[in-house]
């Protein structure tokens, strides 16, 4: 009992810290990294609901991410619809899209489902390239200005700094975590897990498999589309490869798998690892750091080699991470941590 209170207290403290960060951290770059982190958490968490809990490994989540991003951006760009309205249009469209995809793909199992999900996402990407009048094709959509958010004539925020994005991102991440928590602790979660463990057994227990898979897909797709819309507005630019590409789908999946599927904190851990790691590699911070602590000299051959190559190697590192995780910790970082502390918190799935 005291443990639960302690946990809640730590959680609240942490939350409070996250809420006040923008008051004290002025560097837009630091806020930018936090926003990317929130985005990553919400992406991973959305995938987690369908992939981690219901066991339906979609390699096509770029479809929902892209539809969310595109709808919001298209409405803002060509119809001057404010994004906080456009987002919900996106959600409505994504629900329809998800149900259509579900009715096609959920007839298939295992590898066939995976392949079908890829095919659908690819069709979406190619359509976005080819339907130029609707989507502006490969040129993508650039929104130079976001209208200020007003309630009753009062300006709440004008989106000129990163702060509003920080709070929206934080809210989105917390929201997806909350939904996952709810899913895990509701009947829905048990049905999902039954389907994941053994579809036929679940069926014979009277669980309507297709219906529950579709519910999982719709929840997951809606959350992903919210993340997509957030991405679109924040970056201010969408084009087919960056929001609908196959590597977007893989990235979304990796966050969750490396962190640990079917757990609430898995995607959070995954994001905490992957987001800083790829930024550090990309911007050569690791080499700079090694130089600073005197590990290598900047002009030595090793130093130069690292500087030239490390930035290009972050996808390679992703690959190595995935292989290691699958071979040695199939339950992701979360599973690994739990193994280290086997006796504590058995009840927490």
């Amino acid at each position: 009992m005291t443990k639960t209170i302690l946990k809640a207290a730590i959680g609240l403290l942490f939350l409070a810290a996250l809420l006040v960060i923008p008051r004290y951290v002025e560097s837009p770059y630091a806020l930018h990294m936090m926003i990317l982190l929130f985005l990553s958490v919400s992406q991973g968490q959305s995938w987690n609901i369908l992939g981690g809990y219901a066991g339906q490994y979609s390699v096509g989540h770029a479809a929902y991410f892209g539809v969310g991003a595109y709808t919001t951006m298209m409405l803002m760009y060509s119809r001057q619809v404010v994004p906080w309205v456009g987002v919900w249009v996106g959600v409505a469209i994504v629900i329809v899209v998800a149900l259509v995809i579900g009715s096609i793909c959920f007839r298939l199992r295992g590898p066939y489902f995976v392949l079908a999900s890829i095919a659908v996402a690819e069709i979406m990407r190619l359509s976005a390239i080819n339907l130029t009048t609707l989507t502006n094709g490969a040129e993508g959509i650039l929104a130079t200005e976001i209208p200020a958010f007003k309630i009753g004539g009062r300006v709440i925020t004008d989106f000129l700094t990163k702060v509003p994005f920080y709070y929206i991102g934080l809210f989105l991440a917390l929201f997806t975590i909350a939904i996952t928590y709810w899913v895990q602790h509701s009947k829905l979660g048990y049905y999902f897990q039954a389907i994941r463990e053994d579809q036929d057994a679940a069926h014979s227990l009277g669980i309507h498999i297709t219906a529950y898979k579709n519910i999982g897909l719709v929840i997951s797709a809606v959350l992903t589309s919210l993340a997509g819309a957030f991405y679109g507005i924040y970056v201010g630019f969408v084009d087919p490869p960056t929001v609908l590409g196959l590597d977007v789908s893989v990235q979304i999946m990796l966050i969750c798998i490396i962190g640990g599927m079917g757990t609430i904190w898995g995607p959070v851990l995954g994001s905490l690892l992957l987001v800083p790691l790829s930024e550090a590699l990309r911007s050569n911070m690791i080499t700079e750091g090694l130089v600073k602590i005197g590990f290598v000299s900047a002009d030595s051959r090793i130093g130069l080699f690292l500087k030239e190559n490390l930035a290009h190697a972050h996808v390679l590192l992703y690959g190595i991470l995935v292989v290691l995780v699958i071979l040695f910790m199939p339950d992701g970082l979360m599973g690994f941590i739990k193994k280290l502390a086997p006796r504590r918190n058995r009840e927490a799935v």
Partner: protein
Amino acid sequence: MRKHLLALGAVLALSPCLLAQKIGVINSMSGPEAPIGEHITNGIKLAEEDLKKKGINLQLVWEDDTGKPQISMSAMEKLATRDNVVGVVGPYTSACSNAVAKLAEKYRVPLLIPAAAKEEITRQGLKYVFRMNAPADKYASSLIDAASSLGKPKTIAFIYENTDFGTSTTKTAKEYVAKKGMQVVADEPYPKGAADYRSTLAKVKSKNPDLVFMVSYVADAILLMRQSKEVGLQPQAFLGAGAGFTTPEFAKERAISEDVISCTQWTGDVNWPGAKEFEARFKAKFGKEPTYHAACAYASMIIMAETAKKAGDRVKTRDALKAGKWNGVMGEVQFADYEGFTNQNNHQMLVQQIINGNYETVLPAKFATKKAVFPFPKWK
């Protein structure tokens, strides 16, 4: 928060020594755009060397955007707020430049884009965004004008990769030929990396166009011309809009590249001051012929560094870029406002043709090194 930012900005503006000579570079050093990114990197490295000789010691902060706009934006955030650079040169691709331009304006960092083609970038009235190269509409108009001056083409076919560069260049080209009263008989976007263009080319051939206008990177340029030869596509001229059609690799494929007309921002044989020397030194240092990207990047870095050195801070650097006039490897450079563009160098495009395996400038007449071969000779 905004107050804090402003305060921060004020502190930074008041301390030019803090900002001196730190210049950011955003470029596609890895990812699919890396082959051309490498030319930009090398151009900048050569500029760094030359500036050193002139006593300008640069501290360059290199950022790789891997060809992705959102990463490009991260890089800009970092350069503007963490590294406090006085100016930025880059990024390479249109998509990245477009995304970064907005941020440059927001953080008031002078941004000099060396070689991105999309017109809109300098059409948004952004005060801190400058562009060295001529935008996409010039590719189309210079090529089509050249073809019209050489013969009387009435029909045109477009084959282009379905990327930002391909579609936006073709879009302006279509608008331009409509004005000229030419008829578009085929409009074929293709996905990058498709193994087989023969069926598309056979279809184009059946329309018998006077001109074939292509926008592709180098590998596809070679493949398209090889397969054009295979199916016997025989227009009055093949027009290649920059990119893949202006590379030494393409010229080397003599069986299929001979007599193809293309346009470029720069060549080694043009009589702009230092161009020939730049080409020779680049070749000696990197073992490769420089592309126009390299020359654009070189000139951009020289201009940015010299201006920043004299001006000191971001605002003054911007003003000096706006007011200045240069003459170097890219010819005369001035960032002007015209035809809806802001801070755009009204650069003279060169029309060239591959003759005996070499790029020869054929138009405009005052830069021409050879007379154009027209119409395109029969395939052997």
